[in-house]
């Protein structure tokens, strides 16, 4: 079984990793031994373009779900992403300083943004989208984008 759900819209193929959860913006959340790692979906990185800079809230920042967690500047746009969960940032991907193109090259792996501690993961998870639900939303967004081409 594949690790991804995939769809091809126009000439672009988008993948959704099935081992994590998502918010509707396309920020993914993966639980790892009591902590959660966050990053951007493949669709988000392809739609946004080559990343020039990534500014992530620093370690020690406490965020409520919906508060700004990262500003990504690409060759096309500047986008602010909000945290999909409430918690404390305990680690920021060092690659975001030196090589933020990792977001484009490996959005579900080396291009992660931050690691957070959450107090009630089960409650947080209940507010997120499972891979299939996000895939359906993402596919609709991709098809809308394709109409603009």
């Amino acid at each position, binding site marked *: 079984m594949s690790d991804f759900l995939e769809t091809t819209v126009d000439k672009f193929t988008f993948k959704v990793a099935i081992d994590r959860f998502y918010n509707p913006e396309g920020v993914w959340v993966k639980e790892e031994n009591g902590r959660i790692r966050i990053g951007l979906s493949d669709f988000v990185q392809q739609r946004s*373009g*080559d990343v*020039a*800079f990534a500014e992530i809230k620093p370690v020690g920042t406490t965020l409520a779900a919906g508060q700004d967690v990262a500003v990504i500047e690409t*060759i*096309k746009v500047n986008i602010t992403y909000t945290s999909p969960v409430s918690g404390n940032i305990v680690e920021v991907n060092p690659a975001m300083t030196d090589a933020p*193109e990792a977001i*484009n090259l490996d959005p579900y792996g080396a291009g992660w943004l931050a690691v957070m501690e959450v107090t009630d993961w089960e409650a947080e998870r209940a507010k997120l989208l499972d891979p299939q639900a996000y895939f359906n939303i993402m596919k609709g967004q991709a098809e809308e984008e394709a109409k603009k081409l």
Partner: protein
Amino acid sequence: MTSQIQKIIIVPCSGIGKPYGTVSREAAYAVTEDLRPGQTQLVPLALLVLGDEESRAVVAESPAVTIDGCKLGCAAKMVQQSGGTIAQEFAVLDVYRNHKDLKPQGIAELNEGGMKLAGVLAEEVAAVVDGILTAKEGGENA
């Protein structure tokens, strides 16, 4: 016998409608028209894409410096597909990362930051051209 000095080929991005593509072309114009006009020759990417025989021959004969506006790297890919040798690849994004204050905006007409970024990039390309020519001269005199 005096050997003719080979020009370095400059191939910029041909992306239309994107500031970074425009920066690559402005930098290429600055190098070939102002900074190193006698040592460089601009070859439009579009001619390589069309398979223009004259352009392919020029690229195949001389070292090329490519300037790409995005990570698709069309300029570099087309030089390689045309049988050319890339002496150095430039990406506008890499230069911008070192000059965050020079954010390029505008397409047909770049903003001040974009023009300054093109100038910085052009100087870097010119330095590479000098290095290539110096190395060639050294090799020929050895």
